[in-house]
């Protein structure tokens, strides 16, 4: 097998913020690969680097053994082509003219298209079923027709590698499958290497034999669809719950986004008090606010990130002066807020001697018979001299407080109306 794409320790990004961080990747000729990952994971940057649009700040990118930035443009165009998500063409080129542009680098500067060029264009038009609209301007066509014309242009280019950058995301189900089948046939019959970015995990799983999952500019999973699309991995990367079903007969994988939030407004009329600090309670505050819960928080220090979020969301907050340990007055104020709450949540807050008294609020809530939820992993956030926070959490747990891992865990535990 020859290596079609070889990335070695590639670091690249826009301006000074690297998006890809030391990414290494090897792709064999003739593979059909889905590139997955949440927004900002580096999928598009990966494509920019592989297609030579973006020069990596470190590392090497090789296509079929030659470095992309050393390749003459015409050879590069014969090696790799890109189907974009959409193509905005400000002048009324006809479909045929657009497809002929796929031959741009093949036709010499001083010559007109040869019989062979015309044959390739003709074949591409037939393959993509756009022969009957060949004389119509591209910008008059529907999204599906336009995308087929662009695929035809890429076919006429006859590259050895095709990158599909969310190429089917604007298309309806029928056209999406049609384009995917077309690309699959190219891959199978002509050995074209295909990489596709898709947010549709289902389509990616169905048409790829290998999936690469990116997150934060690095490969977090790489393998067969069944190996990559596990509930655990997806949950870790996409921060939401999913159900993955494998059909026992066909082996097809289907992915369902499991309900992540209770129905909007399910928390209406319920009051929850959150003990946060330093920004660790931000996500909890935001998500619970979306569910319609009445929120309060504190004690927080004035100017704290969580305090700002709480006030933006209209949550009443007991405040202490910046950088000061919690005073009796502030704690009393928090007590008043917590007294009306139906449940209390402790966000993953780091504890020092200054904010330790917040545990009193949780103690009192348990005494009053209210549910209390505590973020797991206090061992790593206890900065008190005698590991007081760990001790207090253990006491709370024996008294009936519940542990949670992260927000997605927490929400189903909360009381609803």
């Amino acid at each position, binding site marked *: 097998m020859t290596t079609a794409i070889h990335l070695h320790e590639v670091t690249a990004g826009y301006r000074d913020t690297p998006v890809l961080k030391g990414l290494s990747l090897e792709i064999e000729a003739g593979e059909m690969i889905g590139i997955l990952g949440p927004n900002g994971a580096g999928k598009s940057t990966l494509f920019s680097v592989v*297609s*030579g*649009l973006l020069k990596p700040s470190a590392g090497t990118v090789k296509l079929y053994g030659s470095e992309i930035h050393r390749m003459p*443009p*015409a*050879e*590069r*165009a*014969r090696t*790799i*082509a*890109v189907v*974009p998500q959409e*193509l*905005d*063409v*400000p*002048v*009324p*080129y*006809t479909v045929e*003219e*657009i497809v002929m*542009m*796929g031959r*741009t*680098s093949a*036709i010499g*500067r*001083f010559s007109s298209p040869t019989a062979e060029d015309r044959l390739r264009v003709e074949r591409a038009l037939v393959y993509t079923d756009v022969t009957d609209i060949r004389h119509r*301007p591209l*910008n*008059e066509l529907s999204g599906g027709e336009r995308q087929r014309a662009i695929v035809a242009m890429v076919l006429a*280019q006859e590259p050895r590698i095709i990158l599909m950058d969310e190429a089917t995301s604007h298309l309806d189900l029928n056209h999406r499958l049609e384009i995917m089948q077309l690309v699959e046939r190219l891959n199978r019959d002509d050995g074209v290497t295909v990489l596709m970015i898709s947010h549709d995990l289902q389509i990616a799983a169905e048409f790829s034999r290998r999936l690469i999952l990116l997150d934060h500019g690095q490969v977090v999973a790489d393998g067969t669809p069944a190996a990559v699309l596990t509930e655990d991995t997806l949950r870790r990367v996409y921060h939401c719950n999913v159900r993955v079903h494998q059909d026992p007969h066909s082996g097809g994988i289907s992915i369902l986004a499991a309900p992540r939030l209770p129905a909007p407004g399910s928390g209406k009329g319920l009051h929850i008090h959150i003990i946060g600090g330093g920004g660790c309670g931000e996500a909890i505050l935001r998500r619970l606010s979306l569910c319609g819960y009445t929120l309060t928080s504190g004690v927080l220090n004035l100017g704290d990130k969580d305090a700002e979020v709480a006030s933006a969301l209209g949550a009443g907050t007991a405040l202490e002066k910046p950088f000061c340990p919690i005073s009796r007055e502030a704690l009393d104020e928090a007590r008043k807020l917590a007294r009306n709450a139906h449940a209390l949540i402790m966000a993953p807050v780091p504890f020092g001697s200054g904010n330790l008294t917040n545990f009193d609020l949780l103690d009192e809530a348990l005494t009053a018979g209210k549910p209390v939820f505590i973020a797991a992993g206090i061992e790593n956030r206890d900065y008190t001299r005698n590991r007081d926070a760990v001790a207090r959490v253990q006491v709370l747990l024996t008294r009936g407080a519940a542990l949670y891992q992260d927000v997605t865990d927490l929400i189903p535990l909360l009381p609803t109306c």
Partner: protein
Amino acid sequence: MNNRRNFWLVIGLAPLLLAFCVLMGPSGIGLPDLQTQYDILILRLSRVLAGFIIGAALSCSGVVFQAVLRNPLAEPYVLGVSSGAGLGAALAILTGFAGISTTALPLCAFLMAVVTLALVYGLSSHGSTPSLYGLILSGVIVSAVCSSLLMFIVSVASLEGMHNILWWMLGNLDMPSDPVLGLSGLLVAAGCTGLWIMSRELNALTLGHQMAHHLGIRVKVAILTALLLATLLAAIAVGVAGLIGFVGLIVPHIMRALVGSDHRRLIPAAALGGGAFLAACDALARTIMPVEIPVGVITALLGGPFFLFLLKRHRTPGWIG
């Protein structure tokens, strides 16, 4: 194919229109008597030639600006060439430098246009190649500065100087001496040919710079060369004939509607069609009224309504054409 037929129509009709222009003049319509009025014929010929050269330069330049900037409102003066040249001309007129020889004024205007261009490129590039928006923005700024300097000069000029500057700014084809005409003709021919050779780059660049890259174009080199050639064409036109508006904006659109958007056809069509258009406008400018009126007035009066007509007829989304 309609486009192909129209292309040959443009190529065929342009020389006919040019020949007709030679027949028109303030001394009447018709061929002057070759024995007695030989000089008039030469005068008319050189004037028609000037119109043709300037029209071709402006139209080709406009085609390229619209394609590379991917903007239907782009025109040859978008990078501030016009204001720079205007400033140069005003300085030449006021300092009396323009009186030295007939080449002095065009030379001054052209040089200032080139200086402006260099300034605009310099301002918009951070180390490497300039970004398109950076180019347009610095073009606007440099142009504004030049305009205000020009206004200042006009406000302190003598009455005669002011009249001369204004007349120059309105644009006319009266000035060029033979050496100016010959040199500009050669340069414009070279520039238009250069752009024609770049047709496939221009075609690919209209699809966006990323797509052009994927199609195997050296994008940065192509953009810089195309813009440079187009701006130099505009600078030559402004230097020779002053500010003649609308030709560089409208002729490209009309030609695109007639022969299609493929630059292999569009550039020669724009050169010939635009040249003939301006020569015809100039012929009208010197015949329809007892006093000669600036040709810019005619181009705008003819071009505007024709443009609207096209816009109404072709209701295609995006661009007209």
